[in-house]
């Protein structure tokens, strides 16, 4: 910074201050684009990559795709997912794991997407429902499978050997 004498100093200072004032008054008269949240609720759309809450999509017959393999539970870094499953015998005599309860702790989830990536059947996904505040902490432990829902019957999924192998080594 070059040396300035007393008068030059005052003039320089006044100039910079006036530049500041000019900038701020310009903004004062600009149009302000503020998103007005509760008023714009209907028009608020997020890209589907946003992750606000885990959900298990059910089809119109109240069926989900989860086979209770437990990969998501294992992938979760902080145990936010808890799967309760039981062994049932299918008609053709095979033993099969079936989902009883898929508990997900929203209050603990860190939305890292590892569970969704780990799932071999696309049974879970993140939704864009961000209005999740509650008064009671217990309400944040969600059961993702709807009451009375069953496993979707579909042509046997082509299970790649990869996830099975993963399961074994992870155990």
């Amino acid at each position: 910074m070059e040396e300035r004498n007393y008068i030059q100093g005052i003039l320089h200072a006044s100039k910079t201050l006036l530049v500041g004032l000019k900038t701020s008054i310009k903004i004062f008269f600009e149009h302000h684009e503020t998103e007005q949240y509760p008023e714009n609720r209907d028009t608020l759309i997020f890209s589907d990559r946003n992750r606000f809450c885990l959900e298990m999509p059910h089809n119109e017959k109240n069926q989900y795709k989860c086979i209770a393999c437990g990969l998501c539970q294992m992938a979760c870094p902080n145990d936010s997912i808890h799967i309760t499953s039981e062994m049932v015998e299918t008609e053709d005599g095979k033993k099969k794991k079936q989902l009883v309860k898929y508990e997900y702790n929203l209050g603990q989830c860190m939305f890292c997407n590892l569970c969704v990536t780990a799932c071999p059947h696309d049974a879970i996904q993140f939704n864009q429902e961000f209005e999740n505040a509650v008064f009671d902490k217990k309400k944040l432990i969600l059961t993702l499978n709807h009451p009375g829902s069953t496993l979707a019957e579909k042509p046997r999924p082509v299970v790649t050997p990869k996830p099975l192998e993963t399961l074994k080594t992870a155990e």
Partner: protein
Amino acid sequence: MFDFSIVTKWFHSLLTGVMPEWAAIGIECFIVLLFIILLYAILAIALIYGERKICAFFQCRIGPNRVGKWGLLQVFADVFKMLTKEIIKMRQSDRFLHDMAPYFMLLASFLTFACIPWNKGLAILDFNIGVFFFIAVSGIGIVGILLAGWSSRSKYPMIGAMRSGAQLVSYELSIGMTMLTVILLNGTMQFSEIVQQQADFGWNIIRGHVPAIIAFIIYLIAGNAECNRGPFDLPEAESELTAGYHTEYSGMHFGFFYLAEYLNLFICGAMAATIFLGGWAPIYFPGWEGFNHVMSLIPGFIWFFAKAFFVVFLLMWIRWTFPRLRIDQLLSLEWKYLMPISMLNILLMALVVCFGLTL
């Protein structure tokens, strides 16, 4: 211009007609008190709302808009809230002084508030050393701040209060000097007389031209500093001293500080309007008879408020633009720049008046 003193005189004679003089004066005092408190509250609420909206617009936002239409009820909600908050009593504080400090602030702003001539013949305190009185009572506020800082027995308030002490003592000088400049021009210390002269001979800022404009600018800077408002908000310096001298105050006691801040802002604006911008005097352009006639139909207090709020807007503009000064810069601004300049300015004004160079 309508002279308001007709109303007040008529009212006085009405009262003295039915009761002894002392009782009449008592009733008048009571009415004036009510008037002041009411006006004080209304102005504070208007200013707080205004500041929040204006500051929002400076900051590319839109400000309060959910409580009432355009957020008009926002400040009322704040007042209700504030009244119902707990006032914390601290074990270690100097309880008596701690509780008294906010009232000192209020007292100072009430007394200075009373000096303002609202309209022709409408001033609560109006006597021949009005300017002197104004400067004297505005100094009471600093006592409140110092007490608040001292009695909290906490480190941040203490630093804030000390800063405030240094700041106010310094900037009182500049305020005094700029007012002296005006007194030189008008030859009186009575506010009503100062305004009357401006109504007759033109606003001081035009009549006194160069020295008056310099004085006006210095007054704005020093007045801003007196109000502890940014960029001179060192005593409360949020980012440094958490909340400065009122860190330990809660509930309505804090509310008083908050109100006093805005009222001081208004008083600063009103005083600038009174001594530089002609108070309640309307705009007159020599030669434009029709225009001047229309202007004189607008009541004086509207002129006054318009000017005061204009200055308040200027101060808000400044506040929401500049960064905060540091304590040494603050003091060097006053002692190295404002004070010498305002001293020279007095000399200049004296010369101008002496040689009859006023416009």
